[in-house]
């Protein structure tokens, strides 16, 4: 029901404010990246930058690598995720509620730490590598395409599993029964009835995987070594040792954004097609299957869920081992943590401060936007919705570069302090905040707000008196999720941090570039704990508000 009337300035004010902020801190910075990529040293408009970069074999290879890895990860994740979702939705797999919690975890745990753990286990001198080679197995290392695809599959599979699971559960049992009743075998019904219904959900999840694997910086940085990858080359061109080259970085950045943004637009289309029979009367039954098949399903589900979490446990354990340079020794000690602490405790403080400030601001901006786009449908609010989703498709490095180029001179100078980090974090997390608050609102009957208005409170008063209290639990849950993912934010941080504003992630990043494996593992362990503990604390809240992590 539309409530948008001329005298209700409230939604209009929020829309204007939202579009203004996004325009200034998201669209404008990206536009500057776009601009520098088309300008030569004499400030003339030119295509020369593109011609120069795109004709180099090295950068062509970067495109090929990025897309090969992205597509392979997407296919792999789908092949892993859809059967897994089916098993959880329709087979009597034991411990389902635990599975449901564990499945969502990789989305909020720092993925580049999973990649780093894999290096510790399966890198050139990794624990497992050494062991395998001692067994006479000619395993070299995990670096390169196989490692990247493996890590993306293990950290991104929830993007496919969660929506697909919901779709499988929402297929009305009577539809399947009708199919069988008409003489189709169960297998045939699955292919002709069930799969087409869940397909849009699978597709929209898979496209998110494609975006994430194309734009991801940390995982690629850890595992690519010297293979060219788009998201890394953008960073190297901008912050490289040979001197900054914003124009060339811009060329790659613009290309990357164009790719991911078109994937996102495609994903939105699939998302809007996602329609189940809304009047689901009977939840689909859990199939009875033979014990062998059930065992297989159980091993598959629990195996995947646990393997995806193994890297994080490995890091926790390894952080207590003694390192000499990059080489690990068998003795347990807390030396790594002492080293880390002695260096400086400032990064931990910075991480906590930046993540707290940014998750607060992201909620303050994102919740009203979510409210307006959900409750006041109009062309303008649709534009706001689309713009607020776009940061999801923009890699953190490119956004960071945009912010630096846009705000290191001129009327507004932000570079070099903490504020620019908070701004970048807010922009990065805005899509999640808008989606989350819109999901919370979908669970609140709009007639509650109408009742409040009808009883005499103005729309603004109703928002603060009724809607905010009703949303509060969910919003707090969403803020914790934001906090947790921001504490592990690497891609925009490495571009934007300076001087005393290094964070836990940049400490790990520097240690990886150098030889501080011990410090890196200790910092990773601290980061895992800082993210896991808040999650545990608000777990019930998240369950109650059915907060989707997507």
């Amino acid at each position, binding site marked *: *029901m539309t409530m948008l*009337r001329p005298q209700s300035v409230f939604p209009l004010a929020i829309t204007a404010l939202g579009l203004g902020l996004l325009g200034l801190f998201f669209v404008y910075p990206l536009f500057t990246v776009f601009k520098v990529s088309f300008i030569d040293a004499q400030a003339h408009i030119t295509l020369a930058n593109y011609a120069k970069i795109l004709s180099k074999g090295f950068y062509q290879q970067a495109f090929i690598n990025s897309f090969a890895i992205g597509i392979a990860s997407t296919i792999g994740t789908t092949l892993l995720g859809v059967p897994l979702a089916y098993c959880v939705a329709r087979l009597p797999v034991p411990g389902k509620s635990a599975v449901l919690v564990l499945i969502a975890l990789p989305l909020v745990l720092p993925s580049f730490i999973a990649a780093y753990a894999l290096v510790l286990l399966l890198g050139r001198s990794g624990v497992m590598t050494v062991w395998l080679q001692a067994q006479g197995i000619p395993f070299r290392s995990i670096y390169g395409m196989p490692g990247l695809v493996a890590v993306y599959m293990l950290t991104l599979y929830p993007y496919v599993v969660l929506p697909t699971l919901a779709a499988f559960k929402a297929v009305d049992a009577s539809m399947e029964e009708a199919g069988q009743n008409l003489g189709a075998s169960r297998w045939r019904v699955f292919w002709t009835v069930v799969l087409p219904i869940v397909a849009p959900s699978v597709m929209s999840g898979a496209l998110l995987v494609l975006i994430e694997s194309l734009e991801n910086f940390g995982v690629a940085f850890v595992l690519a070594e010297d293979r060219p990858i788009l998201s890394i080359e953008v960073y190297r061109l901008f912050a490289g040792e040979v001197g900054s080259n914003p124009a060339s970085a811009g060329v790659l950045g613009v290309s990357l954004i164009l790719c991911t943004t078109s994937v996102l637009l495609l994903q939105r289309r699939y998302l809007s097609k996602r329609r189940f029979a809304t009047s689901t009367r009977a939840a689909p039954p859990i199939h009875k299957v033979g014990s062998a098949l059930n065992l297989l399903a159980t091993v598959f589900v629990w195996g995947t869920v646990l393997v995806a979490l193994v890297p994080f446990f490995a890091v926790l354990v390894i952080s207590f081992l003694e390192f000499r340079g990059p080489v690990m020794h068998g003795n347990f000690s807390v030396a790594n943590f002492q080293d880390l602490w002695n260096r400086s405790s400032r990064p931990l403080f910075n991480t906590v401060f930046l993540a707290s400030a940014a998750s607060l601001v992201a909620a303050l901006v994102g919740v009203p936007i979510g409210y307006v786009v959900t409750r006041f449908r109009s062309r303008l609010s649709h534009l706001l919705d689309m713009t607020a989703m776009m940061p999801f498709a923009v890699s953190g490095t490119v956004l960071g570069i945009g912010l630096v180029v846009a705000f290191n001179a001129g009327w507004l100078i932000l570079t070099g302090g903490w504020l620019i980090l908070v701004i970048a974090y807010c922009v990065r997390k805005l899509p999640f905040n808008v989606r989350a608050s819109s999901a919370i609102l979908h669970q609140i*009957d709009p007639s509650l707000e*109408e009742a409040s208005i009808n009883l*005499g409170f103005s729309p603004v008063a109703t928002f603060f008196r009724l809607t905010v209290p009703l949303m509060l639990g969910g919003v707090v849950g969403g803020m914790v999720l934001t906090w947790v993912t921001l504490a592990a934010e690497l891609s925009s941080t490495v571009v934007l941090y300076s001087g005393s504003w290094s964070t836990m992630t940049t400490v790990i990043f520097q240690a990886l570039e150098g030889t501080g494996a011990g410090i890196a593992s200790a910092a990773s362990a601290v980061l895992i704990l800082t993210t896991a503990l808040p999650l545990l604390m608000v777990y019930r809240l998240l369950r109650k508000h059915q907060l989707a992590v997507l």
Partner: protein
Amino acid sequence: MAAIALDKIDRKFGTVHAVRDVSLEIRDGEFFTLLGPSGCGKTTLMRMVAGFCELDSGSIRFGARRIDALPPHRRNTGMVFQSYAIFPNLSVAGNVAYGLRARGVASTERNERVRKALRLVHLDGYEDRWPHQLSGGQLQRVALARCLVIEPEVLLLDEPLSNLDAKLRVEMRYEIRQLQQKLGLTAIYVTHDQEEALAISERIAVMRAGRLEQVGTPWEVYNQPANPFVADFMGVTNLLPGVVVSARGGRIEVKIGEALFAARAETGAAGDKVTLLIRPESLLLLPAQHGPPPNFASFEAIVARIEYLGVLTRLDLDLGGVTVRVAVLDKAPDHAVPGGRVSVGYDPARAILFPAS
């Protein structure tokens, strides 16, 4: 407490013409019902009165005051929602006090009025309960109390009973009517249940596709429907296609199938195609070898089907291609058997003619 005047109201949603040129006068203290099939614009019309839906054109007045430009929170209407819309984060007392807080009523007076309102809906002692501890009927009462306590000028009820079970529905509609009469409130009630509408309304407006088809008392819309749509919507009826064979002095004869029907009507000429309306319960199965009562007309037909429904029995009679339905209390007389011939009497005043559509 005010009369409501709707004047030439119109509203389109894109290509859907939800409300077309609706003009209505609802009297002070009247219980007025909007009735019609799903999607006919009842909710839209009511939401316009509440202020949740804008008018493309037209005006709404409470008494002499024009209110259609007023924002919804300043219209002083009390709306009861289909989904109850009870605030889950407030207790029963908190819910009922909500509108009083909006009006800045001091706390002692507020508590007193909340207590009174809850007593009115038979929920005394439920002040500190939480909404999730209440049944559907109790929630509906809280919703009512929450509206009544603010002493609204107009009470608006949009299918308030549709989430309740059949028995409770009958009880609650009686309670709502009683309260409305006791407090002398003007009420607009939306439903698509014709029985409910007949049972509680003083007047009913039957709507179709955004238009008012007829406005009248329950007796009028049931017995003197303005057109076949209203007749059909008001319950099972016979709408029989036929041709006028003679028209003399207000008495018209119509041939339907092979039978000849009599009806009273002011206009009509031989050869006109018409639809004749006669309700199944206005038709009287005559005992074997009996003529009709005085002033009654009669026709003969073949029994096609008999359905025993408990309170009454329904017979489908064949007039030679046209089926006419008869309802008799209890069971059908012994001589009425499928395939057999029966005589049926009726009062021609109960037969209404419409031009064929």
